[in-house]
């Protein structure tokens, strides 16, 4: 039986895992390779790096981090942040990433999704959608949630799937950082519109929030950052809880 996936996400800046709010007051949390390896051995089903480097040498730094991670971590690695072209995507894949998440560049040039899917296969093209609630639904935001591009998030999700995205990483900008749970209505609405897997993101505060997101008709995977940091919850604890809720998960050996 296909298991629901639990994916810890690490924010990486200049080759270090950082934590902070709205890209300010970043605190150094450790080495991304060590942290990814620790998550993998604890039973993470995949690991995700979100590169938030704002310096000119950011691209080279994340490539080196990906290379070192691929040498040490044997679960799938998704890398997002700063990928703007098929050449960028190829560089990240060749360094050892399995999937690449594209966001702002895809919104600006939707055909990038199709080009990447054709060249590398849909399976490695993840489109990250940052959505914020409006009176009537959700709109897509770019640049870390700062820019409302006035595009309906559900229409955009459907278009991404048509263009060849292999997976959608759906982040609720409203819930992100609140620890009050995922935006379940957003997940259900996206799931009704597309026929590709959905990763829920934004708002996880407890194992119960993950369970809610993984119920049928919602997400196929859950991404979470802060609940795993500094061992607030272990991957094993989270999976124990998901299993107790009848959600199929892979248990670490």
């Amino acid at each position, binding site marked *: *039986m*296909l*298991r*629901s*996936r639990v994916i810890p996400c690490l924010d990486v800046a200049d080759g270090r895992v950082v934590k902070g709010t709205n890209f300010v007051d970043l605190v150094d949390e450790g080495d991304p390779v060590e942290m990814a390896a620790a998550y*993998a051995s604890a039973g993470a*089903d995949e690991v995700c790096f979100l590169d938030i480097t704002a310096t000119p040498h950011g691209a080279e730094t994340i490539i080196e981090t990906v*290379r070192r991670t*691929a*040498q*040490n971590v*044997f*679960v*799938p690695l998704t890398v997002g942040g700063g990928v703007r072209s098929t050449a960028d995507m*190829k560089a990240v*894949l*060749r*360094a*050892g*990433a*399995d999937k690449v998440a594209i966001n702002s560049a895809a919104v600006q040039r939707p055909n990038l999704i199709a080009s990447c*899917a*054709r*060249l*590398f*296969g*849909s*399976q*490695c093209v993840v489109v990250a959608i940052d959505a914020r609630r409006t009176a009537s639904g959700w709109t897509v935001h770019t640049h870390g949630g700062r820019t409302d591009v006035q595009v309906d998030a559900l229409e955009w999700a459907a278009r991404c799937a048509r263009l060849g995205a*292999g*997976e959608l990483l759906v982040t609720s900008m409203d819930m992100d950082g609140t620890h009050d749970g995922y935006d379940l209505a957003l997940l259900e609405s996206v799931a009704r519109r*597309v*026929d*590709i*897997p*959905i990763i829920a993101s934004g708002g996880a505060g407890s194992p119960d929030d993950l369970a809610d997101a993984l119920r049928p008709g919602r997400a*196929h*995977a859950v991404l979470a950052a802060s609940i795993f940091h500094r061992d607030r919850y272990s991957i094993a604890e989270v999976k124990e809880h998901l299993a107790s809720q009848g959600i199929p998960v*892979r248990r670490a*050996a």
Partner: protein
Amino acid sequence: MTTIALIDHGAGNLVSMEQALHRAGADDVVVVDAATGLTGCDGVVLPGVGATGPAMRTLRRAGFVGALRAYDGPLLGVCVGMQLLFDHSLEDRTDCLGLLAGEVRAVEASPLPHMGWNDVDTLASMGETVSGLSSGPFYFVHSFVPEPSDRSIIVGTTTYQADTFASVVRRGPVIGVQFHPERSAEGGLDLLAGFVDMCREVARAA
């Protein structure tokens, strides 16, 4: 000294497979982008990245089609690399290597790709022919699957919703796995260690 050739067909992540083969006991892993690179190796891995059309174009241009048809040592095809072993794929409507008889078809389920950790159910008669299969679940990410004409090559099957498909095949020294052993944690490394052992034994016997 066990040397494994890892075929580079142009797209995607080779680093993971290269490192995983080292972890699995290969003394040397050579990434080859031309058929001449296969000379002297003890085993060949056809990795599972990219899409079928572009992958076959690259293999054809680099002379791998003839070389792999002539090669009679251990060969492991992974994911798309497994699919390339068959006659033809409906992905990109592409003629493939034809080392195994059958066609590659779309998975009949939703959503696609079939993405994540899933089981391999081994067939009693064949399960022992590929070692490490009891170490699952394994990580899958694919939308197509081979439909072998000769059902006797099927070692294990996987079920995603209502579709049960061949996820592990073997005919002689040719093995195909639909999942990614290099992305399947310790269980995947067990499977690769079995393949490396097989390469070592074949080399020793030669």
